[in-house]
């Protein structure tokens, strides 16, 4: 988070994390398509030749003035492939909130768990324990005939208490609700920290 008192800007960083091909980039593409162009940056994607995320995707949303405060939301994705573990850690640096995009296919339960543990490790390397940072669980690909429910995925990740939302990101379903939920939770957390500072 970065606060600029002169400009009255509140800059937030939200990272979309999750296993390979779970739909992290799709979330940002949907947000890019559906947000008024005057309120967003270009979508930056650092991709491999195979169209897979190499380093990160980035999109900035600029909201209007709220009580003289100008919130800007920076959205990042991490590369999901296991090869890019070092890059994932770098993208998490300075995150104010995380959306964990899980793949609801039953055969992806293990990769979801590995990615979850990987995230836990990287956050710990920045001295952030789970519970100290807002995390929203998005259960993507709910249109699969055998999709695990958000409750099942939350249970498998030992994340039952976190807010979880169903999504079909490639159709835009659940994308906005996820964005709103994580933003609300990040703002609440900042207000809480502000109150005790």
């Amino acid at each position, binding site marked *: *988070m*970065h*606060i*600029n*008192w*002169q400009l*009255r800007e*509140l*800059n937030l*960083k939200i990272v979309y994390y999750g296993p390979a091909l779970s739909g992290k980039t799709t979330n940002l593409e949907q947000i890019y398509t*559906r*947000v*008024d162009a005057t*309120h*967003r*940056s*270009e979508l*930056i994607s*650092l991709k491999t030749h195979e169209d897979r995320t190499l*380093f*990160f995707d*980035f999109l*900035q*949303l600029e*909201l*209007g003035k*709220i*009580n*003289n*405060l100008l*919130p*800007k939301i*920076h959205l*990042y994705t991490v590369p999901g492939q296991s090869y890019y573990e*070092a*890059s994932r850690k*770098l*993208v998490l*640096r*300075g*995150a*104010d909130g995380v959306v964990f995009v899980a793949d609801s296919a039953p055969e992806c339960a293990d990769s979801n768990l590995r990615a979850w543990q990987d995230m836990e490790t990287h956050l710990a390397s*920045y*001295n*952030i324990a789970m519970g100290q940072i807002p995390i929203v669980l998005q259960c993507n690909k709910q249109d699969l005939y055998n999709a695990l429910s958000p409750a099942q995925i939350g249970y498998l990740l030992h994340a039952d208490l976190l807010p979880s939302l169903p999504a079909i990101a490639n159709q835009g379903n659940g994308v*906005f609700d996820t*964005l*709103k939920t994580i*933003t*609300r*939770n990040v*703002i*609440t957390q*900042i*207000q809480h*920290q*502000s*109150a005790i*500072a």
Partner: protein
Amino acid sequence: MINPEAASPIDLPSGITLYPSHDEAIDRILNELQERCPAEFILLAEVSGQILSVIGERTTVDLAALGSLVAGDLAASQEIARLTAQYENYQLILREGPKSNTFISEAGAHLVLFVRVSKEIPLGWARMLIHETSRQLAEIIATQPEDLGKLDLGLSEEKLSSLVNDDLDSIWKG
């Protein structure tokens, strides 16, 4: 500018808070760099890519995108240096272009500086000034203003998260 009634500034474990006096000092230092170098364009961002200041010729480049890429470039370079045991503070990345050279410099733990200079400027001269500026910037951020006073950013507003969500609703085309 300072409201004595308001809540105290936040000091979160991550991220930085820029006070008005920081802003003034940053502007002065960057303007000095621009004049002395001289630099065509300067961008200062927080290490996660959030832009703090921009000076010089503005082109049509998307500044938010540039900030994120500059931060990513520095982060990757720092990690490469660590992996190869070549890391030291104030890392500098040089990119030579056809008409201009660009430098990306670590300015302490929190900031990254991007500077574009004409090819005609000697590299050593630019590098020395950018190093000097990076150290000055890091010192400024590390300094708490003497008289913090009490500043209000409206964060105590109870309905702030709802208001932000309403605003998100308004920019969502569906």
